[in-house]
């Protein structure tokens, strides 16, 4: 029993990173209707920027996170304004190839900027140490991650459900013409949403570096998992993204404990099963 609880918690920690990335992916898709393969790269940049601000420049941890979000948000803005905006109306193939080319470019840029050695930052002092759960040490940082993940979930929910901005986002996600008729400026809305999505991914990346390394190619790895999560949860559905991330994270963790041999493709099995039962994903609408 204790083992199960503990394993579940570790799985939860892993799930939260997945959630943050898939959340950004989902928003970018839900609003702008664009599938951004380069989203994982934004996660990677989150890590690199935190490394730069916190490790190299020795800034305060929270300040570094803030700066990271801002800088990656700017990158997102450039991407949206410069490259994605012209192709919103083009077939998705164009979008995917374009964003995929970004994966290549950003990977090499990261290598030019930070070198090929993967980077990791020292754990902030106030996060060192553990709390005892079922008599086993559980890192405070993981608790913090779980907390942040859930907090973000609530925050995003409030933002989309309660604020005017969120309402107009959902409106334009449903029907752009209608939204613009209501006097919503679609263009700025899209930019805003995309930057927000980028920032969420960056947060995931930033929070990951004290625990994980960041190096060229990380983005590609995380995006695939995020895709699977999104497919499981239902495309363009935040609730789905959250639940999907939990499923993948926790089930994966238990798989590691009981049938480690399947660890590698368990997520694909989950996906296949979900698709078999609910083709549109757990929370997806039939279209």
């Amino acid at each position, binding site marked *: 029993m204790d083992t199960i609880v503990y394993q579940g918690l570790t799985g939860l920690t*892993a799930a939260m990173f997945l959630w943050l990335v898939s959340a950004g992916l989902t928003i970018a898709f839900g609003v702008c209707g664009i599938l951004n393969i380069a989203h994982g790269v934004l996660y990677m940049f989150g890590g690199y920027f935190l490394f730069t601000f916190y490790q190299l420049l020795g800034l305060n941890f929270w300040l570094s996170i803030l700066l990271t979000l801002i800088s990656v948000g700017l990158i997102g803005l450039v991407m949206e304004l410069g490259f994605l905006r012209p192709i919103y109306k083009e077939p998705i193939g164009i979008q995917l190839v374009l964003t995929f080319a970004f994966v290549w470019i950003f990977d090499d840029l990261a290598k030019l900027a930070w070198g090929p050695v993967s980077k990791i930052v020292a754990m902030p002092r106030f996060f060192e140490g553990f709390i005892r759960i079922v008599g086993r040490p559980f890192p405070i940082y993981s608790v913090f991650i779980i907390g942040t993940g859930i907090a973000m979930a609530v925050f995003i929910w409030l933002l989309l459900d309660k604020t005017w901005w969120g309402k107009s986002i959902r409106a334009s996600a449903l029907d752009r013409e209608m939204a613009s008729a209501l006097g919503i400026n679609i263009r700025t809305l899209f930019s805003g949403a995309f930057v927000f999505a980028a920032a969420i991914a960056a947060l995931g990346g930033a929070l990951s570096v004290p625990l994980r390394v960041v190096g060229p190619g990380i983005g590609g790895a995380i995006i695939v998992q995020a895709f699977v999560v999104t497919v499981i949860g239902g495309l363009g559905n935040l609730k789905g993204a959250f639940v999907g991330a939990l499923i993948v994270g926790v089930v994966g963790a238990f798989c590691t*404990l009981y049938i480690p041999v399947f660890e590698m493709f368990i997520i694909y099995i989950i996906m296949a099963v979900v698709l078999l039962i609910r083709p549109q994903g757990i929370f997806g609408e039939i279209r």
Partner: protein
Amino acid sequence: MRKRKITGLVIGLAVVLLIMIIVSFVPVTAAPPLKQLPLKKEVIKIGGQGIFSGPNAICGRSMMEGARLAIEEINAKGGILGSKIEFKYMDCELKPAVGIKNARYLVGEWGADFLIGHDSSGVLMAVGGVMPELKKILIGTHAATANYNERLVYREKNKYCFRTASPTYQDATIFAKVFAKKFPEVKRWASINCDYEFGYVNLALFKRAMKELIPDVEFVAETWAPFWTMDFTPQISAVMAAKPQGIYTSPWGGEGVQLARQALIMGVFEDPNVKLYINCTGETSDFLMGMSNEIAKDKFHGKLWVTGRYVLTQNDLPINKHFVKTYAEKYAMYPFHCTEGAYSAIYLIKKVLEKSRTLDVEAVIKAMEGMKWDTPSGEKWIRPEDHQAVYPVPIGRPVMDPDYPLMPVVKDLHWVPVKEYYRWPPFEPSIDEIVKAELKR
């Protein structure tokens, strides 16, 4: 209007394409043979490849730097028998198909006389497979699968393939032999291994050796980590649930750093039960650099043990001192086995050509078999049967050392005689059989 522009652009593109085609079709004309040089060639071309993209780019780059270092030294001293060395290094992208493509390009188009490098076993095996067709010599300098020397060379008689880096199994076997003596009380082992060849072989050999030495040894938990694992905490907590005394891990490079780091954060090293934590090839620069903070603070309480196929503190030979010094000056980093492998490969080529005094492949192979030459990791010997370099490597613990300010180094070295841990012809039972037997999966 826009149409016009596009038309122009299209024509432009067509021209570019044409040029590209021409470029790629022009066969490289080899330098005219010069009678006075014993090798009948002004330049000896050495082609190499390794990973430049992705998280393991450090390996590919270090090999390139190591080779460059040696080549510059040799060329400065007038080259090999008067012939200068020319070097071209390409990205194999960790893809065998690309590796083969590069090899074909380097030999077929660019005119390479030797091929060196290769990080991934898959790529090395693939390229080795086409060498008989290309009829040039391939020297592996990093990828360590035992299938290369035992299956490809020894069984399948592929005489074109050589390797200067030691094979996978040294990690596992040396650990087993050392710890069985040093910590006989550690009997409960758990493992976190790469979910691919490298991990399988490591664990299988470690189990086998341990069982021989400590009959009542237990392997209480086996977990696996696929490529691109970013979060090892599930593996770690699963392993810790089994209350092990020793933990054997094989993820390397960046992944190795994450694993050790996450183990640290999850209190593995604080746990009194855990006596030993092994990381294979933990001597690589990226691992040591990634861990430098923790090592400086001695967070590991001396429980972290690493191996490497070359440890820069392993001897005081002048060649080693010189190698480390010049490399550190050039790249502000210490060399590790990738660097050393490539560096010694170039010197191997030098010595062999000086002996054979010709570039004729058959003669060169003859000269290479059984060749002994000096490298930073001491004298290496090319075993004739499987073209594998044989040399001693230690295990040890990473520490900060005032003599080496740039990053931690491995000290407190333990050795096992070469005879005892290398596998020898006829290589029975084969690695695959051992893996099958040890990991019932």
